[in-house]
C-alpha cells in the first residue's frame, strides 16, 4: 500500500500500468472467497461472541488498541433509527426502550426496525445513489421521465421484502427476460435506464456522427452502472484502451457492451407479457367450456357449412350481394350502401354495407324489413368479404396469445363496413334447442399502434345488445355471452369504421358459437362448468386489475447491432470482427463466454445476469457485504466501495470481509440477515465520543469506537419534518414535485417552498430533476444524480448555515414545530421545553439548558427555541 502511494506521486496522472505478469497473477478481490477461521471467544456469560467482534478485536489487539464501551440506550436507539430507517425515534419509543427491563430489548428493537416499511425507504436511498436514479433525462433537454418511479418503488420493496440479493441483481439486469409475466421483474430493469440520457444526441440531431457518439456514451453508462454497482469493477476505464491497472482488456469491454447493445432506453408497459399470459389461460378455460357445450360455429356457417365443421375455410359472403366468394377481394367498388342483400345460405338471412349520413338513414338488416338506426362512423366503404377466417391482408390472426386459425379455434372475419344477419330459426334446428346463447371473443386483428381502430356491434332482432367502440389491437379480446330466447329470430354482427376511415379495420369474431343454455346440461357437466366459470371470473378480475402501467426501462432494438472494438473509444473507428457477448476473464472461476454473435439480445442479458450472480463469483458477494458494512458503519472495509481493483483501496479487515461475504452467500443473499449481524455486534454498539485511539487511528479504520456522522441531506429534511410533526408517510407512487414545471425546448424547473402535506413526504419520494438540482438538498451535500455515488461526501459550509437558518421551508417547519409543542405539551413553558428537546434530540434538557431555554421562550417565544434546536449540531449529528 505504501508502495502504491509513492507511485501515485511519481506518476502524476494517477494511472499506472501494472506489469502484465502482475495483472495475471490475480488480485486479492478476484480470488475465491475463503471462510476465515474465526477465533472462538466467549463473553462473560459464556456465550460465543459475534464473529464480527472476534475479528475486529483481533485487529485491535494487533494495533494495541482497546475497544470502547457500549453506548447508552438513548444513543443506541437514535443511531439505529437513523441508520436503519433514516428517521428519528419518537420520544415515547425512546423512553420505552431506555426504561425497558428486558435484556433482549436491543435485539427486539433491531427486529422491529428491520421489519418497518421505512427500512426499505432508507436502504433504497443507498442503492439509488449507486444507480444514479433521477426522474428526468438530464443534458440540454432535461425532459420529464414520468415513468421512472416504479423502479424506485421496486427497490424499496425489494429491501423491505428482503429479496435475495442475487435475485435482486438478476431482475435488474434481465428481469424482463427471466420472468416476462412478472410486473416487478420487468420494472426492475429500470435499473439499466436509471442514468442520464441525451435526448438531443439520441433523437433530435440529424447527424449520424453525433447520434453514434451519444449512443456509445449511453451504452457506456449502462455497462459502467452494472459493473460498478454489482462488482466494484471500473470497467469504463477500458473503453479507449486496455485497463491500466486491472486485468480488463479493451476487447472485453466491447464484449460486455455487446450484451447491452441490443437494448435501448424507453418507457415500456410493465404488464404486456403478464396480460398475454392471463388472457391465454382464460382462453383455455373458454375452450374447455366450449368443449363441454360445443354449439354451432357461425364462422363455419359463413364458410357454407352447417356450423359443425363442414364449411370451407376462407370462403366468405360478399356484403354487396350475398354471394359466396373465395378469392381475396381487397377494396370493394360498386357499393350500394344501406341495401339488404338476401343470402342463398339458409342459415344466413342476408348482408349489408352500412353508411351514416346527414339525414341519418335507417339501415335495413333483415329480409323481413327490420331496420336499425344510423351507425356513427359507418362511411359506406368496404374491404373484402365476410369470411370463415381472416379477411384479406389481416395483420395477424393471433390475438391475446391465441391463433384463431389453429387448434380448433375459429374466426369470423368482418371488415368495416359490413353487417351480417343470421337466421336463428334455421340454426335452432341444428342445435336442437329453442333457447340459445351466442358466445364469442371479438377483437381487432389489424395493425398495432393506437391510431388504427374500429367499432363492433351485435344486434338481436334489430335491438343493439352490445357494442365495442374504438377497438384496438392493444385492447386484446372482448367476451360476449348473449342470451337468445326462443322468441327472437335474427342475430346481426356489424363492423364499422370508427371515424378514421376503413384502413386496417379488421374486426374478427373469435369462436362465434351458438349454444344451448347451460341449465339444460346434465348435473355433472353443469358443476364442471360452474367451476370453470368461477375460475374464469377470477382471471377476469386479475386482468381487469392490470393497469396500463409503464416503467422507464429498456426495450429491444429491432435488430441486434454488431459490436466491434472502437479504436480509442471512437465510434467512427470500429475495428476487427464482430464480437460475441462476453464477461471478464479475470474471474478465472467463471466462464467469460456469454454466447455467440448469433445470440439474441435476451439471451445475452440473461447470460450476464447469471454470470454476475454465479455463486462462485467472489466479487459480487464481497462488494455487497462491503456496502452493507459501509451503510451501517459509514466506511467500508474497502473504503473505495465501488472499486475493488488496484486503483482502489485494500480491505482493512480482509478476513472479516470474506466472512461477511460468505455469510451473505450462505444466507441466500439476505441483506437483513447481514445487517442484523452487523448492528447487533458489540463493535457497532460502541460509544462514539472517546479519544483514546486518536493517536493511533484517527480515521477509526480499525473501529476502536463508533464513528459519529452528520445526517445526510434527505435525512435532515425528513428529520425536520418528523420533528415538526408534518412528515407525510405516504409510501410509493409518483414522486412529489416541489417545483413548477414549464414545458419548453429545454424544460424549466422552478423550485417552490414545499408547504402542503403532499410535499411533506419522505425525501426518497422526491421527483428528482437532474439539471436543476434541488437547492436546499444540494447545499446539504445531496450528490449530483449524474454520478454513480458509492459514498457521500460531507462538507461544512456557511451556505448550509444560511439555508438551515433562513430557508422558507425550514422557517415554516420551525413554526409548525412550535405550534406542535403547544398542542403536545400544553401551555406550560417548562413542559414545552421538555417536549421540544425530546422531539428534536431524543432526550430531556439538562437543568442548565432548561433554564436558558425557558428564558428564551419567555423573551423570544417558542419559535426561537425551535429554531435553535433544528440548527443545533446535536440535531444534525448522530453519535
Amino acid at each position, binding site marked *: 500500500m505504501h508502495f502504491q502511494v509513492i507511485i501515485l506521486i511519481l506518476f502524476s496522472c494517477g494511472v499506472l500500468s501494472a506489469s502484465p505478469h502482475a495483472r495475471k497473477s490475480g488480485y486479492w478481490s478476484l480470488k475465491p472467497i475463503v471462510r476465515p477461521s474465526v477465533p472462538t471467544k466467549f463473553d462473560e456469560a459464556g456465550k460465543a461472541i459475534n464473529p464480527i467482534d472476534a475479528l475486529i478485536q483481533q485487529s485491535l489487539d494487533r494495533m494495541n488498541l482497546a475497544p470502547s464501551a457500549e453506548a447508552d440506550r438513548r444513543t443506541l436507539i437514535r443511531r439505529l433509527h437513523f441508520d436503519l430507517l433514516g428517521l428519528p425515534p419518537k420520544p415515547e419509543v425512546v423512553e420505552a426502550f431506555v426504561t425497558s427491563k428486558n435484556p433482549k430489548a436491543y435485539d427486539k428493537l433491531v427486529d422491529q426496525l428491520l421489519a418497518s416499511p421505512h427500512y426499505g425507504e432508507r436502504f433504497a436511498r443507498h442503492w439509488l445513489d449507486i444507480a444514479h436514479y433521477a426522474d428526468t433525462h438530464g443534458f*440540454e433537454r432535461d425532459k420529464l421521465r414520468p415513468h421512472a418511479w416504479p423502479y424506485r418503488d421496486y427497490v424499496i420493496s425489494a429491501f423491505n421484502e428482503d429479496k435475495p440479493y442475487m435475485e435482486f441483481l438478476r431482475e435488474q439486469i434481465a428481469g424482463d427476460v427471466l420472468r416476462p409475466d412478472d410486473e416487478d421483474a420487468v420494472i426492475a430493469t429500470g435499473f439499466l435506464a436509471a442514468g442520464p440520457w441525451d435526448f438531443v444526441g439520441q433523437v433530435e440531431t440529424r447527424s449520424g456522427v453525433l447520434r453514434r457518439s451519444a449512443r456509445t456514451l449511453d451504452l457506456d453508462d449502462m455497462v459502467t452502472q452494472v459493473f460498478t454497482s454489482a462488482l466494484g469493477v471500473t470497467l469504463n476505464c477500458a473503453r479507449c484502451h486496455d485497463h491500466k491497472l486491472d486485468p480488463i482488456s479493451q476487447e472485453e469491454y466491447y464484449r460486455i457492451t455487446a450484451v447491452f447493445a441490443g437494448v435501448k432506453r424507453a418507457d415500456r408497459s410493465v404488464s404486456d407479457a403478464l396480460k398475454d399470459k392471463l388472457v391465454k389461460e382464460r382462453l383455455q378455460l373458454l375452450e374447455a367450456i366450449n368443449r363441454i357445450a360445443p354449439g354451432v360455429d357461425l364462422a363455419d356457417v359463413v364458410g357454407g357449412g352447417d356450423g359443425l365443421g363442414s364449411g370451407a375455410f376462407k370462403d366468405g359472403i360478399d356484403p354487396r350481394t350475398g354471394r359466396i366468394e373465395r378469392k381475396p377481394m381487397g377494396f370493394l367498388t360498386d357499393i350500394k350502401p344501406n341495401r339488404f342483400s338476401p343470402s342463398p345460405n339458409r342459415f344466413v338471412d342476408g348482408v349489408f354495407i352500412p353508411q351514416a349520413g346527414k339525414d341519418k338513414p335507417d339501415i335495413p338488416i333483415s329480409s323481413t324489413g327490420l331496420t336499425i338506426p344510423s351507425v356513427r362512423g359507418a362511411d359506406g366503404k368496404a374491404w373484402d368479404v365476410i369470411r370463415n377466417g381472416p379477411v384479406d391482408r389481416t395483420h395477424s390472426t393471433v390475438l391475446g396469445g391465441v391463433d384463431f386459425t389453429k387448434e380448433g379455434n375459429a374466426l369470423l372475419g368482418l371488415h368495416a363496413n359490413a353487417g351480417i344477419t343470421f337466421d336463428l330459426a334455421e340454426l335452432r334446428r341444428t342445435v336442437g334447442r329453442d333457447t340459445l346463447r351466442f358466445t364469442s371473443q371479438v377483437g381487432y386483428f389489424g395493425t398495432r399502434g393506437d391510431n388504427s381502430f374500429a367499432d363492433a356491434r351485435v344486434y338481436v332482432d334489430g335491438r343493439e345488445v352490445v357494442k365495442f367502440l374504438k377497438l384496438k389491437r392493444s385492447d386484446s379480446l372482448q367476451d360476449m355471452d348473449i342470451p337468445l330466447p326462443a322468441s327472437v329470430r335474427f342475430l346481426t354482427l356489424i363492423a364499422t369504421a370508427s371515424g378514421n376511415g376503413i384502413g386496417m379495420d379488421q374486426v374478427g369474431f373469435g369462436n362465434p358459437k351458438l349454444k344451448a343454455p347451460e341449465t339444460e346440461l346434465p348435473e355433472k357437466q353443469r358443476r364442471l362448468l360452474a367451476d370453470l366459470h368461477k375460475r374464469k371470473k377470477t382471471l377476469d378480475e386479475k386482468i381487469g386489475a392490470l393497469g396500463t402501467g409503464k416503467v422507464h426501462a429498456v426495450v429491444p432494438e429491432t435488430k441486434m447491432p454488431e459490436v466491434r472494438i472502437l479504436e480509442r473509444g471512437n465510434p467512427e473507428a470500429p475495428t476487427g470482427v464482430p464480437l460475441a457477448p462476453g464477461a471478464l476473464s479475470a474471474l478465472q472461476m467463471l466462464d467469460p463466454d456469454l454466447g455467440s454473435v448469433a445470440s439474441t439480445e435476451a439471451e445475452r442479458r440473461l447470460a450476464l445476469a447469471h454470470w454476475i450472480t454465479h455463486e462462485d463469483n467472489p466479487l459480487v458477494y464481497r462488494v455487497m457485504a462491503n456496502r452493507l458494512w459501509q451503510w451501517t458503519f459509514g466506511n467500508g472495509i474497502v473504503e473505495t466501495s465501488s472499486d475493488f481493483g488496484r486503483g482502489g483501496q485494500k480491505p482493512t479487515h480482509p478476513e472479516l470481509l470474506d466472512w461477511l461475504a460468505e455469510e451473505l452467500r450462505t444466507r441466500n443473499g439476505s441483506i437483513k440477515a447481514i445487517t442484523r449481524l452487523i448492528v447487533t455486534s458489540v463493535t457497532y454498539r460502541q460509544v462514539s465520543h472517546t479519544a483514546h485511539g486518536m493517536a493511533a487511528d484517527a480515521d477509526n479504520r480499525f473501529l476502536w469506537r463508533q464513528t459519529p456522522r452528520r445526517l445526510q441531506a434527505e435525512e435532515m429534511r425528513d428529520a425536520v419534518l418528523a420533528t415538526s410533526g408534518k412528515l407525510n408517510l405516504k409510501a410509493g407512487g409518483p414522486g412529489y414535485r416541489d417545483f413548477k414545471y414549464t414545458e419548453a425546448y429545454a424544460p424549466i424547473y422552478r423550485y417552490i417552498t414545499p408547504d402542503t402535506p403532499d410535499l411533506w413526504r419522505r425525501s426518497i419520494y422526491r421527483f428528482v430533476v437532474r439539471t436543476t438540482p434541488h437547492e436546499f438538498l*444540494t447545499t446539504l451535500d445531496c450528490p449530483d444524480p449524474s454520478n454513480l455515488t458509492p459514498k457521500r*461526501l460531507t462538507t461544512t459550509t456557511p451556505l448550509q448555515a444560511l439555508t438551515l437558518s433562513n430557508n422558507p421551508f425550514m422557517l415554516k417547519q420551525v413554526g409548525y414545530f412550535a405550534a406542535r409543542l403547544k398542542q403536545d405539551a400544553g401551555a406550560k413553558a417548562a413542559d414545552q421545553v421538555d417536549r421540544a428537546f425530546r422531539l428534536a434530540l431524543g432526550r430531556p434538557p439538562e437543568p442548565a439548558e432548561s433554564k436558558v431555554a425557558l428564558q428564551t421562550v419567555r423573551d423570544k417565544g417558542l419559535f426561537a427555541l425551535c429554531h435553535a434546536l433544528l440548527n443545533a449540531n446535536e440535531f444534525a449529528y448522530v453519535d
Partner: protein
Amino acid sequence: MSIRSRREFLKTFGGGFGLMALDGLLAREPRPIAHHPAKAKSVIQIFCPGGISQVDTWDYKPELTRRNGMQFDPSGNLQFFASKPGNCQGSYWAFQRHGECGRPMSALFPRLATCVDDMAFVHSMHCKSALHGPAMFMMNSGFILPGFPSMGAWVTYGLGSETDNLPGYVVLPDLRGLPPGGVINWGAGFLPAKQQGTPMRTTAEKAPLADLFPPDEFKDYLRDDQLLTLLNRNHAADRPENSELEARIKAYEMAAKLQLSAPEATSIKGESPATRKLYQLEDGDVGPFGRQCLLARRLIERGVRFVQIFCGAENTVARKIRPNWDSHEDLPRDHGYWGRVLDGGAAALLKDLKGRGLLDETLVICTTEFGRQPAAQGKDGKGRDHNADAFTAWLAGGGIKGGISYGETDELGWKASVNPTYSYDFHATALHLLGIDHERLTFYHNGIERRLTDVHGHVISELLS
C-alpha cells in the same frame, strides 16, 4: 470531504506528512497548493453559450468571403447537427486590423477592438461534441458527460479561497435563465459539494445569495443565537475529538459575516458615474451584462477566486431573438444583438481591470462551447449550424501575452488546422497561470485519479507573457 480524499489530497500535494501531522490538518482547509509561482490570483470567465461564429467575430477568413454564394459541399455528403450545408457565407461584419499588434477583428466589436493588444486568441479550438449540453460540459469540466467538476470547482479545490466573507467560486448567470445543461456547468461533480459555484442573483431588489436572509414573512420572528451557541458548545465539550462540530459552529459565524459582505460586494452604489458609464449600465440591452462584469470586478477585488459570467441562456425562452448565440435562423440579428452586449461588457471589464492595476493578476477568459459553420443554414440562408471542429476563445491579463494568436483554422474557417486545441490545453494553460500543474491536481473517483484535463493537456507556452 471524506477523510480519505482529504488525506489523498495531502499525500499528493503536501508530500512528506507523517500521519500525526496529517491528522492535525484534517479538519481545516486543504493547504493552498503552489506547484510553481502563480501569475494570476483569480479568474473571470465569460461564457457565451450557444456557439459563437468564429468567422464573423475573431477569425478573419477573406477566402470565405471571396467564395460567397459558392457551393460549400459539392459532394452533398455532409450532414451537420440540424441541416445539410448551404452555400459559403462570408462574415456579416467587415474585418479591420486594430491596435499595435494589428490583429484583425470584425466590426461587431468596436469596443473590444481597442483592447486587442491585451488579448490572446486561440483560433484552433475544437470540441468533442456539437451538441450544446455535452459541449458546454466539455468546455467547463473537460468531459462531455455530466457529473464532472467544473473548472471553477477544481480551481477553488486546489487554491482554496482568499476570503472567508464570500464564496470562493461565484457564478453570475444570464438574467434570462440558466445556460444549456443547467447548473451542472458550475457543479462540483464528485468533488466536495462546497466546491460548487454559488450563483449570485444580481438584480437590485433581491438578496444576492439564496437564503441569505429570512423571507419577509419571518422577518419579525425572533431567534436566539445565544441559545444555539450554548447548545453547540455543551455538545462539543463532550466530544472534543470531533473537529467537524467546531467547523460547523464556525460555519454559522461565517454565515453571519456573509450577510454583511455579500450585499456590500454586490451593491454598486459606491461606483463612480464614469464607471457606470463605462459598463453602460443604463443601456437596456448591454446594461444587465455590463452589471455582471462590474460585479465580477468587485468580487475578485474582495478575494473571490473564480467568477463565471454567462453571456446568454439556454434555448428555452426564445422571444424575438435567440436567448443565446445559437444563430440557426438569423445570424445578423442574433449575433448582432449578443455581439453588442459582449462587446460592451467585456471591453469595460478589461479597461476597468487595467485601469485599477488588477488585470495583471486576473486571468480573463472568454469562450463558447463550439463554433459555427462557414456555410449558410436555413431557407433564407441567414443562419449557421453548429461546428464542433473550430471556434475561437480568447484570454487576457494574468500572465497572458497580449496581441497574439495561437493556432489556425483552414482557409474557410471550417476546421482547426494548425495546433488543434481541445479544452485540455486551454484548461492546462489557465491552471498553469494560477500556479497549478494540471497533472497534479487530482481527485480519486470510481477507480481513477480524475483531472480537469482527463489524461491530456499541455500548457500552451506561446500564450504566456
